């Protein structure tokens, strides 16, 4: 189970799994910002990324990454990959900006 050819890592309905872990965490500000990013990019007046593209991007992360990453890390990776693939941003400008942000080391909560 879990290794069916053609079944993606996200496609987990009916597979065996452990008991439901009911502890919940409050969303961190950066997680809310990722969510807001997607809401804005997917809004009817912008339609830069659709929710289907978000999901496809998450499904394409690969098993290891999918299982290792937190929920909003998956979202962020998918959003970024989609923006790169669509040419909305370039890998050069992203790389430069990430290096800048790291250097600033600030919260950047906007």
């Amino acid at each position, binding site marked *: 189970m879990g290794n069916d050819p053609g079944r993606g890592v996200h496609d987990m309905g009916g597979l065996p799994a452990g008991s*439901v872990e009911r502890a919940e965490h409050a969303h961190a500000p950066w997680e809310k910002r990722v969510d807001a*990013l997607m*809401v804005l990019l997917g809004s009817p007046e912008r339609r830069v990324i659709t929710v289907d593209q978000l999901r496809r991007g998450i499904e394409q992360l690969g098993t290891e990454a999918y299982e290792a990453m*937190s929920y909003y890390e998956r979202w962020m990776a998918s959003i970024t990959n989609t923006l790169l693939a669509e040419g909305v*941003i370039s890998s050069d400008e992203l790389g430069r900006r990430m290096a800048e942000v790291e250097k600033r080391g600030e919260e950047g909560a906007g």
Partner: protein
Amino acid sequence: MASHVHDQAHDHRPPPDEDGPLSYYETMEIAVREILIEKGVFGADDVRAAIEAMDARSPAKGAEVVARAWTDPAFKDALLVDGSAACASIGIELGPLRLIAVENTATVHNVIVCTLCSCYPRNLLGLPPDWYKAKAYRSRVVREPRAVLREFGTEVPDDVTVRVHDSTADMRYIVVPRQPAGTEGWEPERLAALVTRDCMIGVTVPKTP
């Protein structure tokens, strides 16, 4: 910077909140947001407004809808026919997604899931709880719903059918629980206080007062 993001190993815990160095994806979020603002895709105010709208949504909205359904039979009928239109009729706009309300009865108990991802009626319930997005719930609730419900303290009698509804991005479900006995004639506001998020997901039922 790699042109494709997929190989950053991380543990399951969400990153610590704002203390310490930024994680890789926190850094990425800031960078992407800044670039998009500079390109005029949206403004910083739009981000703030989206977060405020998110924070304003809570299960209280869903509870209001359920309490209305309990006290207004015509509204309940309309809700079960077309959830989105019925919500719009009382001023709750759900946007393009289709809302399907499923009613618990003496013979049927409903529960919702999104096995493929995390689709959820967020306009009515806010953001989904962690367990709704996690593997254990998504995998098991479609195969052994009674066992999963038992983990939430919910025992569904054998003669009651359990129906599991698998959501999609465009089609989202909400459970209309059964009104607890002894609450007939209550005001909608008082009834709404009995309706929790988990009741509207279907993993619990409203407590009899």
